[in-house]
């Protein structure tokens, strides 16, 4: 899950900062309203655009699976317990399926898909190193913060190995038969201790290579922001505007704060 997909299409060369901006823009606009029309329009546009996303159908299905599970789950919850309005279809205890909750459920499901799918699709083609370069050079976030985060990300794989070793060790020590919750807590604490050690070792290694040295830092990899980056943000903006436009025109715009 942590490794980025690689490829040669245009999408792989676009600065990750532009992908971040496009995904945020779309999400920002779509959470302003809770109607199904705007979400459906956005989703329709996105499905056309996904052809250029640089993912095979299988990779697309695999990577976006969590969104496909989350969206209908949220939808069903809204359907059963959402704000009641209009005709009542079915009621049982706290469960109250009504015309209003049905509409809300559809809107919720579509909205999660419309925000979640493009975010996942844009981010599976992001290389963390490129993102860090962009955040530091284009957005001008502090280098210390960005590079510290990037180097720390590499430790995640080691944590997974540590966790497995801790698990085996507990079986070997004779304490794996019961008390699952307590064991989990003690294991989590042991992992914390180990990760602090690994972190401080990494920090020493970084310092030994002059990290944090006074003077201006240079960047071995240029991070550029040009035409195709603006084009991607433009596409995101166009999808957002189109979905708002259709929604307002059909009279279904439902501002979230009213």
């Amino acid at each position, binding site marked *: 899950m942590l490794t980025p997909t690689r490829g040669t299409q245009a999408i792989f060369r676009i600065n990750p900062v532009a992908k971040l901006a496009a995904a945020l823009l779309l999400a920002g606009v779509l959470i302003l309203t809770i109607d199904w029309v705007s979400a459906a329009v956005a989703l329709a546009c996105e499905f056309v655009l996904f052809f250029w996303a640089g993912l095979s159908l299988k990779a697309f299905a695999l990577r976006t699976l969590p969104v496909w599970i989350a969206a209908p789950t949220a939808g069903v919850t809204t359907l059963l317990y959402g704000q009641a309005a209009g005709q009542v279809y079915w009621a049982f205890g706290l469960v109250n399926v009504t015309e209003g909750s049905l509409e809300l459920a559809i809107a919720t499901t579509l909205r999660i898909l419309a925000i979640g799918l493009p975010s996942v699709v844009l981010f599976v083609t992001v290389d963390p190193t490129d993102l860090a370069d962009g955040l530091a050079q284009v957005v001008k976030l502090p280098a210390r913060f960005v590079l510290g985060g990037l180097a720390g990300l590499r430790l995640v794989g080691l944590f997974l190995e540590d966790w497995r070793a801790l698990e085996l*060790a507990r079986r*070997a*020590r*004779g304490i794996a038969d019961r008390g699952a919750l307590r064991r989990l807590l003690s294991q989590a604490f042991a992992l914390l201790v180990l990760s602090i050690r690994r972190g401080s070792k990494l920090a020493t290694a970084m*310092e030994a290579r*002059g*990290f*944090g040295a006074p003077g201006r*830092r240079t960047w071995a990899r240029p991070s550029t922001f040009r035409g195709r980056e603006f084009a991607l943000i433009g596409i995101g903006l166009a999808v957002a505007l189109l979905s708002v436009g259709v929604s307002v025109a059909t009279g279904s715009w439902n501002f979230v704060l009213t």
Partner: protein
Amino acid sequence: MTPAAAASVSGASIVARGWGWRHAGRRGWAVDGLDLRITPGERVLLLGASGAGKSTLLHALAGVLGGDEEGEQRGQLLVNGAEPTAARGQAGLLLQDPDSQVILARVGDDVAFGCENLGVPREEIWRRVNDALDMVGLDLPLQHPTSELSGGQKQRLALAGVLAMRPGLLLLDEPTANLDPEGVLDVRDSVARVLEHSAATFIVIEHRVAVWQSLVNRVIVLDAAGGVLADGHPDDVLTRQGERLAAAGVWVPGYGHGPVSPRRGTCSESAPGAAPLLRTPGLAIARPRADVVARDIDLRVHAGTALALTGPNGAGKSTLALTLAGLLKPAGGAVLASPEFADGADAEPIRWKSRQLVTRIGTVFQDPEHQFVAATVRAELAVGPRALKRPEAAINARVDEVLQRLRLDHLAEANPYTLSGGEKRRLSVGTVLATRPPLLVLDEPTFGQDLRTWRETVALLDELLRDGSAVVAVSHDTDFVAALFDREYRLTGQAGPSITRAAVSR
């Protein structure tokens, strides 16, 4: 780095005058009263017992000891006449642990990291990156993922990253302690190539003298009590001080790493009628959710004998050990315990309950910290007996016995994480002994140890073998295998049948 470019870097001089350093929160000084002068271009092997402050000195020279909140300094330590912290980048430091030195995800980026921090212009950075990778002999594309490198390759990558900074002072802190024999030679050869073309001052810490002896022209031995114990030409120091250095834990060729005690008698394998504790008909091994690394393994583990699992990195030695120990599920075939050994439990150790396992097979992990679960040494040793619901008096008696046997009694109330490397290793063996399992499985029990701890480990295992326990250990350490083991099983690294099985000649 091209020879010309490397030669343009002049070596750094080092002066210490009554220098000392105390880590924050410690009572004793890690280094104290050090007087030393190293001239530009000297090649120094730095020796001394564990705790003599070798690493502390190297970290200080690299300027990464930290500020006032990390500890306290007295006297003077100067690199090129200035405080080391004032000129980061003039000293390049290579550390022991390959995993914690990889900083970025791609080979080229990782080498470039130091140059970026020093503000080297972009075109110059990539020139240096390519030169440095050539120099260490790492022939990989710049885009190659660093996560796919072996331990030896990671160390050479880190060395390239250090070289690209063009340091006048090259510092190596046990750079090969965690590597297999092949990795050790690769790293050593890379360093030799670098030194051929460089005027940089060079200091290396290493317990195993033989590896570096030919590359240095001076040996300095730090005294654990402070100051310098010996200083001079390698041949002189090692001959005159050989015995004393060996006693202090330094691996001096010709001193003290032969068999610790006379060979044990015939192993019970040859004794007729004795069934093996474990046998593994057609065993195939794999990590969870991963491919099979070796198949058709047919092993027998007999009481009172020692079996060494050897082979190159990635051949599946640890996987095999953990599978024999009933911790990983066989990917094919089976691990079968004899009825006497199983003692009423299932025939396959992987099906045993955790509590059944501790009285039959004790596993000592490569990293002792992975298996610590309690707040004190005493409680740590009591974990196994307590899981078995032994009466409190019996638990205490057994814990006292193990504490004494492993000479940990003075540390009974200490936190396991605060012990030294050798003490941690002893404790991790002790936690296993507390429940008296007839079979011990150990993963690299001598990794990164100084000679003294090594001898202790060998002596302890020898004693257990004489008492009739069986020992299975993964090891790269040829001295260790020769000193203790009856049989060696070599994994070849191809997922075909593993071939060699030979008696170890002593």
